[in-house]
């Protein structure tokens, strides 16, 4: 503690350099903290994407196989199921495009609203959809892509069914996470019947909303159990795992984040080590004189190491504070509009704070170690001779 004044005075000796180094360390620690919020933030993003109480039921054999539509009604009867809607791949190609460029499904119009209470529809969209059998609800991304407006009529030529459907867009899903188009199941069913087919008896996926999250597990096994001995046994998944299958590459992304974090950390060690060794070299005369006066190896080593550590820890604390401030600001921005929502998912947790501070302490110790050791171990006469 006696040496505190000396350590502080030495840090203030080259204010600009201390400031630059502190700035570099602070910025790097800020970056590392932000990077460290990402894996957790992405996780939260996925769980937001999939409501915790929604499960998907599909044929155990795979997503391309179907289930009888009657199974949807059975599921709907189960205790704890608030709503269920079947979605069946229509495979419609827009006008003359000839191939499917966006997912489109036939859904039970009267049930989508209650399965997706968390989706933001344009006002009256769901009611219009129920009322008009040729209605369609379209995700905003597709609307933009094709320049459609609510009220537009479009033709979808199915690549799966012998049916070309003229539909009228009655509403939009104002959510970029829902890049699909829904048509009315009744419309397709009646069209097929009119064409002399037996009607649409199947369901592709059944989306089920459960009343409470803790019931999800039990209901999934109940549903799968119910279909086990039928011709099409099912497999249920929570929406979260269903979606993260799509985001399968996310794991690799997290690995990249971790590698970048490690590289940034290494980078600040070099920056700080450079400063520490410059500080020692610049002061070799004084250090020699202090050693001559009788300051022992431990005192020299300790004060130099303390100097490097103090600088980097102080800078690291600033960086952590910056990361907290930045994520707070992002959270505020996130409330401004639904598209900005995902920005609010990144939080500097206590773990991240601890890691950021530990990193800066470690950087200080590591960077100060070599120069401090060198200065402490150099024999005093050699040190003096270099100076005089």
């Amino acid at each position, binding site marked *: 503690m*006696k*040496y505190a*004044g*000396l350590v502080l*005075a*030495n840090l*203030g*000796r080259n204010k600009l350099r201390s400031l630059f180094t502190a700035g570099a360390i602070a910025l790097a620690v800020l970056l590392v903290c932000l990077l460290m919020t990402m894996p957790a933030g992405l996780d939260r993003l996925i769980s937001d994407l999939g409501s915790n109480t929604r499960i998907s039921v599909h044929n155990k054999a795979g997503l391309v196989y179907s289930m009888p539509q009657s199974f949807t009604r059975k599921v709907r009867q189960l205790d704890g199921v608030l709503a269920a809607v079947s979605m069946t791949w229509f495979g419609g190609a827009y006008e003359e495009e000839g191939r499917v460029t966006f997912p489109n499904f036939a859904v039970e119009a009267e049930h989508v609203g209650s399965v997706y209470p968390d989706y933001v529809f344009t006002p009256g969209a769901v009611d219009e959809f129920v009322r008009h059998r040729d209605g369609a609800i379209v995700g905003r991304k597709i609307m933009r892509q094709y320049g459609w407006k609510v009220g537009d009529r479009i033709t979808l030529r199915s690549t799966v069914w012998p049916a070309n459907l003229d539909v009228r867009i009655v509403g939009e899903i104002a959510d970029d996470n829902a890049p699909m188009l829904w048509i009315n199941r009744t419309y397709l069913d009646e069209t097929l019947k009119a064409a002399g087919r037996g009607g649409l008896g199947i369901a592709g996926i059944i989306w089920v909303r459960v009343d409470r999250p803790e019931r999800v597990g039990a209901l999934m096994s109940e549903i799968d159990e119910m279909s086990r001995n039928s011709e099409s046994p099912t497999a249920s998944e929570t929406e979260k795992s269903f979606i993260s299958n799509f985001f399968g590459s996310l794991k690799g992304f997290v690995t990249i984040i971790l590698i970048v974090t490690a590289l940034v950390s290494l980078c600040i060690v070099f920056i700080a080590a450079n400063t520490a060794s410059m500080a020692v070299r610049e002061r070799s*005369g*004084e250090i*020699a*004189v*202090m*050693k*001559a*006066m*009788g*300051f*022992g*190896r*431990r*005192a020299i080593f300790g004060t130099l190491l303390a100097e490097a550590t103090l600088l980097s820890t102080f800078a690291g604390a600033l960086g952590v504070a910056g990361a907290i401030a930045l994520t707070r600001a992002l959270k505020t921005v996130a409330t401004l509009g639904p598209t900005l929502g995902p920005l609010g998912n990144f939080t500097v947790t206590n773990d991240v704070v601890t890691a950021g501070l530990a990193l800066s302490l470690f950087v200080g110790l590591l960077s100060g170690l070599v120069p401090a050791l060198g200065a402490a171990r150099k024999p*005093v*006469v050699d040190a*003096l001779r270099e*100076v*005089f």
Partner: protein
Amino acid sequence: MAPLRGVRYPRCMPLADPLPGPPPSAPEEATLIDIRHVSRHYRRGVDEVHALDDVSLRIAPGRFVAFMGPSGSGKSTLMNLVSGLDRPSEGEVVVAGQSLGDLDEDELAAWRARHVGLIFQFFNLIPVLDARDNVALPLLLTDLGKAERHRRAETALRVVGLDHRLDHRPNTLSGGEQQRVAIARAIVTDPDLIVADEPTGDLDAKNAEATLGLLRELTDAFGKTIVMVTHDPRALRFVDEVFHLDKGLLLEGSDAERASEAIRLAAGGHASAGARP
């Protein structure tokens, strides 16, 4: 210059261990520094440099002595051995009854802190500390509290006549003033021995004389033993004794007298007063 008289310098600093050795009643025989057959060799590639060759000498306490000689003659080497900064290749250095060879690196550092005050040619003050904190620096090695450290630093600065510059940083002081701060730093622990390597080497004539006068007064008023390495012929007027070195050898008898005479002649009027007895 230095308002030494009238200032009571504290003789009771905790660092000042009473010196073992002969009682002060017999100062003629007393020996503070005993250099016994000391050699110092350096390896430089394949050849060996004999910086010092079998040098023996004694210095009594309370004396102001100078090591003189041409460049490369081994003056600094000898001074480093006396002050425990370096170890001899052969021979023994005994200061105040302590054989320095018996101390390990850390013990030697602690010994220097307690017994030696150092003054260098290029002052080597710490630029970010003011005069008071620079002087108080060696006291960090004691248990003294901050207030007491400051009080003693102020006393030492008063001894060198700089108590009106307490808060000045080195870069706001003249060369002479900086050297006086360095001298205050060397005496603040009240050491038995002060060693100075070319203390006037970087000073103009006026400040050089003032510095030499100040060192002289430290022996006269406080009984400090001072060993000074110098090229400065003016020093002859201030010191009690001169040891002449040449090519690592200590000159004795007529050789030493001739060396002193040569310096006096070279200095012209400067050294007219001659060395003290």
